[in-house]
């Protein structure tokens, strides 16, 4: 099923959606080699039942994990353009066209608004399957509009990063998305709306060096690779092997760059906890009520 067909429906109903399962009945864990069925894996939110390795998942799965059922997709109408007529081994336009044919998403980031245990939240989630989750003009613009939307609707913002970095085929336009997203985030801060940055495997390059590191809260999934330069580049630079666990979420929390690491199974509850921390209410009971101001 192609993305524009589902996009037409506008509002999504959660969970029941399509299988999207990779071929074959069995999934072999890339970390511990444990075999599990896709059904088991799906029920386990794509974490290995044996070793808890967090398998990379796409934006829609995150929306389904986080939101209470229904949510509204936003800004799907914004799609990439071959601004520079960029050609490497393939033209950028051909790459885009090839991806549109098989992809579930319209670019490397999707935006949705919904409720987390009745508390409103705007969520941007990246898709690694779309040109390595690379940040081009569309990623920058969608984040920019998600920030405007959060301000207009007075909701906190969550960005789930999963990216190899900049989209080279958009050259300097992609570089400037770092400045654009960071500058726009200052407006969210001015409106005193919390920004939670969740880094998942992998989060590197220009994405890390802009919005991903700018959360009021920086959190990450276990084992996620997070860094500025990629491990290969660092290895070539320093000409020796990298220490075990270098640039993992566990490494970053020790170095002081993360607030906490969150297991995917606990993500929704953790978000709920955080959202209540930034809300002042009269009684504890109110925490579980639908806020009157929500649109």
């Amino acid at each position, binding site marked *: 099923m192609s993305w524009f067909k589902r996009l037409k429906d506008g509002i999504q109903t959660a969970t029941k959606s399509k299988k999207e399962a990779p071929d074959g009945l069995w999934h072999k864990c890339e970390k511990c080699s444990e075999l599990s069925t896709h059904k088991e894996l799906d029920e386990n939110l794509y974490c290995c039942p044996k070793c808890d390795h967090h398998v990379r998942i796409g934006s829609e799965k995150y929306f389904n994990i986080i939101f209470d059922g229904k949510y509204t997709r936003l800004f799907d*109408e914004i*799609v990439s*353009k071959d601004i520079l007529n960029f050609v*490497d081994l393939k033209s950028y336009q051909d790459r885009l066209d090839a991806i549109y044919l098989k992809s579930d998403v319209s670019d490397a980031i999707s935006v949705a608004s919904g409720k987390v245990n009745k508390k409103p939240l705007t969520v941007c989630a990246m898709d690694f399957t779309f040109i390595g989750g690379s940040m081009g003009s569309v990623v920058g613009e969608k984040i920019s509009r998600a920030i405007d939307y959060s301000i207009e609707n007075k909701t906190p913002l969550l960005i789930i990063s999963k990216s190899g970095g900049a989209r080279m085929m958009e050259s*300097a336009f992609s570089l*400037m998305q770092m400045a654009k997203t960071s*500058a726009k985030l200052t407006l969210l801060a001015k409106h005193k709306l919390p920004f939670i940055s969740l880094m998942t495997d992998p989060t590197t*390059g220009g994405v890390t060096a802009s919005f991903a590191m700018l959360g009021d809260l920086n959190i990450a999934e276990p084992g996620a690779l997070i860094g*500025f330069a990629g491990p290969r580049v660092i290895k070539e*630079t320093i000409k020796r092997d990298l220490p075990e666990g270098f640039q993992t979420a566990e490494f970053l929390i020790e170095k002081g760059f993360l607030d906490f690491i969150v297991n995917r199974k606990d993500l929704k509850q953790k978000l709920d906890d955080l959202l209540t921390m930034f809300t002042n209410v009269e009684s504890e009971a109110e925490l579980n009520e639908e806020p009157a101001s929500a649109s």
Partner: protein
Amino acid sequence: MVFLEFEKPLELLYEQLDKIKEVGDGGVIDVSDKIKELEKKIQNTRKEIYSNLTGWQKVQLSRHPERPYTLFYIDQIFTRFTELHGDRCFADDKAIVGGLAKLGSQTVMVMGHQKGINTKMRQYRNFGMANPEGYRKALRLMKMAERFNIPVVCLIDTPGAYPGLEAEERGQAEAIARNLFEMAQLKVPILCYIIGEGASGGALGIGLGDRVFMLENTWYTVISPESCSSILWRSWDYKETAAEALKLTAEHMLEFGLIDEIIKEPVGGAHTDPEKMAKSLKSHIKKELQTLQEMQPDDRITARIEKYSKMGDFEEVDLNEKKPAKKK
């Protein structure tokens, strides 16, 4: 004099000139006409070569070993430069220099990437590749400038932020991200000049400002042509092709609306007449600062954020259409 490969015709002419001068020094033959002729030829050849540079040739020029660096410009443009060191957390990064200086009667906070002028100094400056403490020093200086209402001038010239092990440990990404966030809201004017290489996040880390300018023979984009070649072409051999594809020259950047203006260089590049280059940079900084200082801080910040918000190009499709509408 150092000649780049595309300057070969010039090198040959200079060799001829030297030979003729030698003959002239013998005092037997009058060679003054011949010298004049050759000098004219050199001038024309230089003009011809430089009127039609490719992207890759500009990349080479931006890395010319005789090209003036940040400290040269600071020395030429400002007085009473007082270098300020350290990020107050970890170390003093030698790849980014900065400090207070006077431009006429106006105090400015000037900073920039610094490359070394010889083998030893290149090591010392880490080839202009900053570590996190470099970006944090820059931010410390900017915040101080803000407190005392002093405008900020950034000179950018880096092959990239340093991709080292310790740089990662100390949060290279966080340091750059923090600068972008803080520079967006800085209450004083920020002027940015690409004076050499403008490579990726390492350049942008001190490159978000009210106005961004590029010297004529510089480049600015998200990745070096070499790295781009190795990733997209899976070989190091396509740097020239990558340089063209990336459209990384000042002309392209201006056309894209990603910079505000191009600063002309002397024919043959900034290194052929560094003093002249510094002089025109000086008058440019003066003029731009004056314009920016006439604005209210809040208006300046709003305009700055607006400017970056507009950067990017994409399509907006009708979701009821079957396919994304494409302009061809």
